[in-house]
């Protein structure tokens, strides 16, 4: 299923919360939605989830308009907001049962859906607990179960990891990866950029309601490292008004396979960084190499962890001295800091 946000604008009085943004993504992938507070993330997400209406523009799910056919869209979209279920006097399974019934699931089909989702989100022990008695992490799991109860093709999540402890965040990450493997498209906003970098295939960055950058993670990371784009890849970043940034890369035929770029830092003895840089540049998987002072080399290597090890191994094989070798985790955060200015509307 292709999700396409086209020229979306939302105006509240004199405030333009979302200003003509366009992007698209397809199923089987996880996409991050990044922006400072007040950037228009939640407004965009609410429109995508049919909770709000755009002033102009629209969101299309396989070409079906969310504005014109919200009921049809709700069948294929699951929405997990940043607020948590606050119903009183209702147990976890009753809450999920209510939503299952509300989506028209009946009899054995509903029982199966409930059992599956309770098992998937590990809510078995919480089935008979009242919602008000749950911790934040537990409520997040209930919220995720609620969003998935009708087996949607697209899952939209607003700050799903906010306020979760490290273990709960790890569990959520694992669940999202499983869902992506099940060919669901996942679109999530988050402030925890290092986590997004670990799980996302692409990202959209907005500020003051405007789209700043959009693309696969490799393309975005290449921007922060100043590397040129690989020739076959489309250039979706900073789309012009009316154009759609295709995050899945499906717009340009044939679709490019974009392996994740890994940013690494090699520490060398003082004055010995240049030979290391030259050696890395010889390798075809190296996307970019930069020198910092005369004892530090920053490089972006295309490929898996094993391929990155092989590239670094060529440096050792050449007899060059490397004091330490670090994988950089902050690429997306650096990009975020670089291209946003922290302005709110």
């Amino acid at each position: 299923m292709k999700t396409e946000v086209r020229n979306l604008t939302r105006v509240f009085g004199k405030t333009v919360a979302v200003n003509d943004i366009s992007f698209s993504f397809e199923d089987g992938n996880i996409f991050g939605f990044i922006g400072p507070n007040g950037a228009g993330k939640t407004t965009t997400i609410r429109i995508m989830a049919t909770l709000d209406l755009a002033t102009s523009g629209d969101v299309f799910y396989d070409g079906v308009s969310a504005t014109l056919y919200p009921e049809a869209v709700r069948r294929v979209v699951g929405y997990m907001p940043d607020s948590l279920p606050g119903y009183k006097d209702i147990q976890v399974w009753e809450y999920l049962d209510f939503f299952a019934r509300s989506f028209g699931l009946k009899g054995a089909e509903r029982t199966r859906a409930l059992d599956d989702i309770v098992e998937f989100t590990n809510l078995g022990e919480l089935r008979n607990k009242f919602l008000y008695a749950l911790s934040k992490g537990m409520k997040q799991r209930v919220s995720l179960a609620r969003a998935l109860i009708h087996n949607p093709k697209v899952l939209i999540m607003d700050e799903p990891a906010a306020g979760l402890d490290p273990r709960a965040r790890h569990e959520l990450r694992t669940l999202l990866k499983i869902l992506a493997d099940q060919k669901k498209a996942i679109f999530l906003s988050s402030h925890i950029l290092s986590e997004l970098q670990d799980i996302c295939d692409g990202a959209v960055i907005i500020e003051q309601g405007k789209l700043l950058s959009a693309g696969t993670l490799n393309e975005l990371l290449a921007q922060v490292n100043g590397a040129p784009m690989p020739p076959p890849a489309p250039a979706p970043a900073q789309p012009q008004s009316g154009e759609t940034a295709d995050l899945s890369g499906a717009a340009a035929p044939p679709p490019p396979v974009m392996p994740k770029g890994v940013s690494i830092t090699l520490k060398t003895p003082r004055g010995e960084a240049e030979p290391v840089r030259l050696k890395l540049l010889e390798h075809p998987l190296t996307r970019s190499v930069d020198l910092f002072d005369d004892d530090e080399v920053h490089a972006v290597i295309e490929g898996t962890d094993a391929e990155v090890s092989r590239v670094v191994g060529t440096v050792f094989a050449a007899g060059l001295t490397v004091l330490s070798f670090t994988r950089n985790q902050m690429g997306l955060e650096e990009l975020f800091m670089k291209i946003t200015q922290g302005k709110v509307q």
Partner: protein
Amino acid sequence: MVGKAFFENLGESLNPVFIKEMRQYFQNRRMVIFMGLLLIVQFIVALFFASAMTFDTDGSEGVAFFLLIIFAGAGLSVLLCSIGAEQRFAEERSDKELNYSMLTTLKPSAVILGKLEGAMVMILCIFSMLLPFLTAAYFMRGLSMASLLVTLYLFPILVLYALAGIFAGSFGQKWVTVLFFVGIFNSAFGIVPAAFSIIDELMDRGSLDTSFWIAVLVEYEIALLLGVMLFLLSLAVVSPPKSNRLLPAKAYLFALPFLSLILMLPYYIIYGPADFPPDAFYFIEFAFCFFSVAVLGIIAIFEMPTNSIRVYLKCPLNFIGRFLHFLFSTGFSGSLILAFLILAIPVAMYPFGDLSGDNTSQVCGFLCILVSFLGYVVLSLVLSWRTKLPLPAWLWMIIFEVAGNVLSWIPVAVNSGEMRGIPFPVRIASMLISPTYCFMETIEESVASTPGTAPRGGFFPLTITHHALFWSLAVAGVLFLILLPAIVKAFRMHRRPDTGAVKPPTKEMLKK
């Protein structure tokens, strides 16, 4: 096996909201505490009555105990099924992120219906719980079958209270909750004494004659007509934004003056044309027209001039279909045209009404109030949409109503004959506590004291006589003409758009 399958099928066919409501009612601690308290108090009171009872009395203990039980049950029903439903629904609706009517494929009608079903079942539960005490009251003597059946009279009133709670809760706004509480409190001054007097009268009959059943039937009819109105208005509030949310309510309001004829039918059939009260037809028809026009006017001031693409998409292509769709669709133009069309019914009937003197003046007075009200509506819309003054129409309306009507009534109300014997601070306090009651009392008193005239219509500084009515109509008509260009423009825009490449959902997408 057949029984099990039957109950499984029954469970599947139930409204999801109803199931949720029932679960919440029975798992609510307050609910359990209040019901337990009711039982304990009833038990203690029953013991008290039983100990005080002597067998040579006329059985008044039975009547008193009976009334105590049914009013305690009614009070608890209002508390739990009306105020309780309002609180829960308001809480659900105020959560903009987890509003299930916007997240699921549930229809708005299913949401309101589920809530109503839940409240009705709870009212039945409360009264079922009181059955042993009602039986005890029967054995205390003094109660006829007619007395016991007056509980039938209470049920529609309680359902209306529940519906009012659902309607107020559907807004999900605190200020509506406050208004609802004020309304509930105020209604105690009007509805409770009225219910007492009707029940008292019914109980005095002793036998179940035709008039008893007609009284019950008419009350059920009125409750049904009002209940449907509240249901449709709740539906309008709960419907998705920019949908054609007011279409059912407007169609119903338009049909209401004609449905009122059904209300008169039982009377007419049973009593025949000879005994049918001559003024009844005019009064009931006028009352329903007034109600429709007033509600349409209130709706109009909250509406926009144009509609969304969602509404236009369902507009018929032929001119007549398009005009009818425009008339009944959301948007103030349709509401105003409908209001003026319905207003034409009592205005046309007025000269031909064979009314007695006092009734003529009352009808004339109310007609003038209604015309001036509609005039305020049009003026508010003109000021809001045709000028650059930055106030919404509803705020203009409040200004006109407060300045024109409410404030002008205060000196009249304060100096009314009924209140003259009461100290001034108490008079003011009583007005604040129950303005509705005070207002109605004053109107009646004013009409009674000046035969041939009626209270003035508010904004227009006229003592109302017949010719004043036509002045009011003329002013309202002129104001409507000022708004006409905006209405014509709205109609021009009201057509099915060309959606071009936008494709409708496939069957696969709609299939669960």
